[in-house]
């Protein structure tokens, strides 16, 4: 199978009064058709910007996004309209991403109207009901407004709106972060069922490592605009290579009692500023293994075998990775 979406040397910089903000800094990723790429990182690491650039909701400063081999950034109007129909997004907050003055049916109909699909209103209505059924919204809710519904139902509307055009690629930007755990599980199951039924390709952006492990085939870990590690999901969790990935995995509280009383190693410090970062490993300032050689020049992703890549100068020194896991 070939990659449906490919990002090559993708960069997105923002001009700010204090200098150039490197939101996405030379990211290379690819997503196979029908699979899920989980993009994980903490706030400010550029994961949402990456998702928006992938859909050309933001234009890239440099680099390419290839969709089915075509460069999305170079697309002319008609091609781009075609692309927009096959690439959609589900937003994080079901409270602010829905227009409060539109009913459920109007929200779901809007992409159809904008793209002039089903000009016949009866056909359109049927499509809306079909979509509501697919995402598990009761037909009686068709004329309700978002404020009348709870978070889980609202997120189902967001999903219906994204999927009503039968897209091939969907960017899910923290779709379950605002939901309670019992509702979160319903939505995750729904997204996975829809993927299986319709062969969807997901780019799943989240800060929650347990969620990303559950849903992803491949995972990319981001830190300050850079992808520091990527590989098959199981491999990343079994054998994290980058010290940041290891620190992230260490930091998550686990719901069993085995870790009680064990003082865990907590990485110190906070994420540094993404404005005009110095070349070198972005994580060096917090890294327990950092040496002077880690700064000075950017560290590229290195192939560690089995599709597992890590951007750390020390990868390969396996004993150190073992060390850090204790």
């Amino acid at each position, binding site marked *: 199978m070939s990659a449906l979406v490919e990002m090559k040397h993708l960069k997105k910089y923002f001009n700010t009064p204090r200098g150039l903000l490197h939101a996405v800094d030379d990211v290379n990723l690819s997503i196979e058709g029908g699979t899920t790429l989980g993009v994980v990182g*903490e*706030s400010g690491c550029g994961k949402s910007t990456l998702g928006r650039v992938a859909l050309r909701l933001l234009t890239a400063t440099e680099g390419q996004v290839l969709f089915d081999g075509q460069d999305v950034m170079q697309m002319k109007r008609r091609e781009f309209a075609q692309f927009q129909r096959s690439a959609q997004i589900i937003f994080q907050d079901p409270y602010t991403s829905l227009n409060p003055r539109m009913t459920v049916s109007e929200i779901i109909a809007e992409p159809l109207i904008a793209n002039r699909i089903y000009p016949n209103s009866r056909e359109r209505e049927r499509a809306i009901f079909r979509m509501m059924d697919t995402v598990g919204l009761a037909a009686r809710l068709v004329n309700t407004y978002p404020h009348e519904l*709870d*978070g*889980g*139902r609202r997120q189902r509307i967001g999903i219906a709106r994204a999927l009503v055009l039968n897209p091939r690629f969907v960017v899910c930007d923290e779709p379950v972060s605002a939901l*309670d*755990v*019992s*509702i*979160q*599980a*319903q939505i*995750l*199951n729904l997204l*996975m069922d829809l993927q299986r039924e319709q062969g969807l390709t997901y780019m799943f952006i989240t*800060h929650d*490592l*347990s*969620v990303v*492990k*559950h*849903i992803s085939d491949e995972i990319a870990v981001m830190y300050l605009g850079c992808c520091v590690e990527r590989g098959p999901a199981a491999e990343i*969790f079994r054998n994290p290579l980058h010290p940041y990935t290891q*620190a*992230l*995995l*260490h*930091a*998550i*509280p*686990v*719901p*069993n*009692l*085995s*870790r*009680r009383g064990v*003082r*865990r190693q*907590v*990485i*110190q410090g*906070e*994420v540094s500023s993404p404005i005009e970062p110095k070349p070198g490993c972005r994580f060096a300032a917090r890294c327990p293994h950092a040496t002077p050689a880690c700064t000075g020049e950017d560290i590229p992703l290195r192939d560690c075998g089995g599709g597992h890549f890590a951007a750390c100068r020390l990868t390969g020194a396996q004993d150190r990775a073992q060390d850090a896991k204790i």
Partner: protein
Amino acid sequence: MDEKQILEIENLSVEYRTDEMLVRAVNGVNLRLKRGETLGLVGETGAGKTTLALTLMRLLPRGIGFVTGGSVKFDGANLLSLREGDMLAYRGKLLSMIFQDPMTSLNPVIPVGKQVAEVLELHNEAHRTKEQIEERVDEMFRLVGIPPERKGEFPHQFSGGMKQRVVIAIALACEPRLLIADEPTTALDVTIQAQVLAMMTELKEKLDTSMIMITHDLGIVAETCDQVAVMYAGEIVENGSVEAIFEGERHHPYTEGLFGSIPRLDIETERLRPIAGAIADPSDLPSGCRFHPRCPHCTQRCKAEAPAEHVVNGHMIRCHLYEGGAKA
């Protein structure tokens, strides 16, 4: 009253009354907390966790929130019958609270050092001088890991994790006997959350404070709490030691649902087992067992009759299935 119990809540009920509706937020809650222990209060949005905390602090919105029954004994005194003037001596001094969102719980126009000093000035029984208070502020800043030089800065100059440290410094400045932490790390990134939790656990041990940790994250409960109370629709549906909750066999169906809903890092799960339906609306609670519309074991009896608390070896489960001690 048992010497070791610092907090005893008996049959507590709280309502919110507005013109349009009556919201029964807390319904007949019984809880006990021993000195030096941490109680985890777990539940989803609208379960009544925060209302319970606000009731203990006597901070329910005036004219809307009412305690309709029950008692709260804290260190021998009934908190609910104290006059507001007497309550001032408790709040911030003997019991204090960390709020969920550090971005909004600090005053944006007052330097952070002054906000820590404020609580010390209010509870200045030791007649500390200005200099002594400043010294104590510096000490608190060092304790929570902020350089004291930064005490003249304003909240917007701090990151989220640092702001939460300031809030914790305020809460702990008077060395309270009971600390209520309402989702203290929900707004923080995981690596920062790990730092804050490690610091809180350390300070709690150092100051011998009892704590109520309100959270929806079962991982945090497993790592920090001694006792766990699971709350649903204003009721405690299960209450027991952290071992009973995480390693025991017997659980309330809602607790089982919560555990089935979370993706696990430590266990492979093919498919999540979520709880069907939506969270009960506290303004329109179902009859009988509050959980029956979502429960996979629901019977006719569950729809009509509210279950009682069934206790075995200190492990309470509020479910008909456990009547007489055994799962039917």
